[in-house]
């Protein structure tokens, strides 16, 4: 009888601890939005001109492989520590670069998805997005020309 009461008290303490932890998580504030000096860009053959942020997150999370018109999506990203990649992840995807890497690793090493293609510079990003049908990436506004499309994120 005494041990049962003690056990209940102990389980109760654990539950309270867990609840406090969860509440703390939920009450934390969101990520501040910075002024954006870049755009999400696509290959000129992509007919989609605007996309919800949920869809964008699924595309860069490598979980969505097709455009609404059925065409295959090819995702290009800069290195994890590139400043533009960092801004893009935080502002457009609402995630940190390490979270994106963890999500890609979970897919790649469980056989349930593929990693995005890494490019080493904004110049290469422009070339690959411009030359790959279905491509999506991100680029500084100053480096965008008419050879690629700008995608509005709703």
């Amino acid at each position, binding site marked *: 009888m005494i041990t049962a009461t003690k056990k209940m008290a102990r389980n109760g303490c654990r539950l309270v601890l*867990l609840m406090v932890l969860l509440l703390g998580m939920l009450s934390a504030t969101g990520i501040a939005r910075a002024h954006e000096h870049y755009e999400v860009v696509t290959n000129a053959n992509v007919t989609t001109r605007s996309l919800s942020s949920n869809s964008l997150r699924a595309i860069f999370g490598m*979980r969505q492989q097709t455009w609404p018109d059925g065409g295959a999506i090819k995702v290009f990203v800069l290195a994890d520590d590139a400043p533009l990649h960092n801004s893009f992840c935080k502002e457009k995807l609402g*995630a940190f670069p390490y979270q994106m890497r963890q999500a890609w690793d979970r897919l790649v090493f469980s056989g349930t998805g593929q990693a995005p293609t890494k490019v080493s510079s904004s110049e290469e990003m422009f070339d690959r997005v411009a030359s790959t049908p279905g491509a999506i990436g991100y680029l500084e506004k100053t480096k965008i020309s008419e050879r690629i499309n700008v995608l509005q994120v709703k």
Partner: protein
Amino acid sequence: MYSKSNNRVSHRHIRMARVIAMSAILWSFPAQSQALPDSQKLPSFLSATFARMSALKLPDAVQVHGFATQGYMNSTGNNNVFGYSNRHDDGSAGFREVGLNASVQLRPNLLISAQGLHRHAGQGSQDVRLDYGLVDYKAYSGENSQFGIRLGRIKNPIGFYNETRDVAFTRPSIMLPQSIYFDRTRNLAMAADGGHVYGETRTSKGDFFYQFGVVMPYVSGTTTEAAIFGVDRPGHLTSEVSYIGRGMYEYDGGRVRLGVSGAQTNIGYNRGADPALLSGQVQLTPIVFSAQYNAERWSLTSEYAIRHTVVNNFGPFSPNTATTGESYYFQGIYRFTPRWEGVIRYDALYSNRDDRHGSAWAAASPATRDPHSRFAKDLTSGVRWNVTPSFMLAAEHHYVNGTAWLAPLDNPGASTLAGHHSQHWHLFAVQGSFRF
């Protein structure tokens, strides 16, 4: 039969040589990374080899990835982790994981993938096994939801870490929290053959992911038998139809992640020539609750598991039992810089929550049973250095009270003699890992 100690002495030089060779190989890899500015300092023939490797252009739809990890473990007492890691044997460098996978996106909705895995970790070693091999068909993919099926050998979706438990880069520490991801039944936990349905729904309030599978568990090898019976028995385990599933909720791009996963794993025993046991059944029903909060510099993770185990029909020498084990951990990770991170964790495992400290269990046979083999409370602290995006080094220390998750095959004395293992013990581990 040669004695264990002779075996160890004769193998020590081979082990040392392996460590040196493996370290050299691992160190050579970052030299090949484009991101490392001082690559000129390292041997040029390796850079040349890599240049040749990367010149092999794969078609866009094909990806090849891999990893190689080498660890060193040093523990106190007679307690062994991943080989003869105790101090009398100068620790053990017998922890090694090497994986290579390939995937082909045949069509946007059709993916095939497979991974080969070699793992050396004491008596639980495996030369090479098919870790997973599957076909993934996405039947529906809309703007806010998708649905698909997977067939083949599929990683078991349990908790946050199980599916990539052998990939050092995806682990928060060298050893995963053993309360939930204990390695003594890893063969059973890793993957299973069968079919899964999966899907996701995206809303403005967060994303929902779900997965459910009907599978045949992987019971080959001696480690699962040892985990169930304490020793390798003359008969063999058989795989029965089992079920597995996970639901996960992610809020704000994964800032908050909440999950519930569970399995009902059914295993039979074909007694063969076993003189003591009949052909009984074992049913394992783990349920895991998972919660994580991710900020820029820190992540908090906690998981709680309840494991119900039913053992039936093994005859008079092994009465029917039904026990419920309980596990949980709290873990904090702090990223000092993108390259340096620290981890601290409290992890607790109870084999039977109605006999948390094993007193009733040990009282039934005091000469052969240690009460501390029924629980383990592990305080872990560690540091990780991401030297380059593809090479990392990690070190960690465990202070453990209890021996519940020690692997029986690496600790043969445990099942026959009480007092052989230390209740309070330390484990120190270092690891280098490369991935591409």
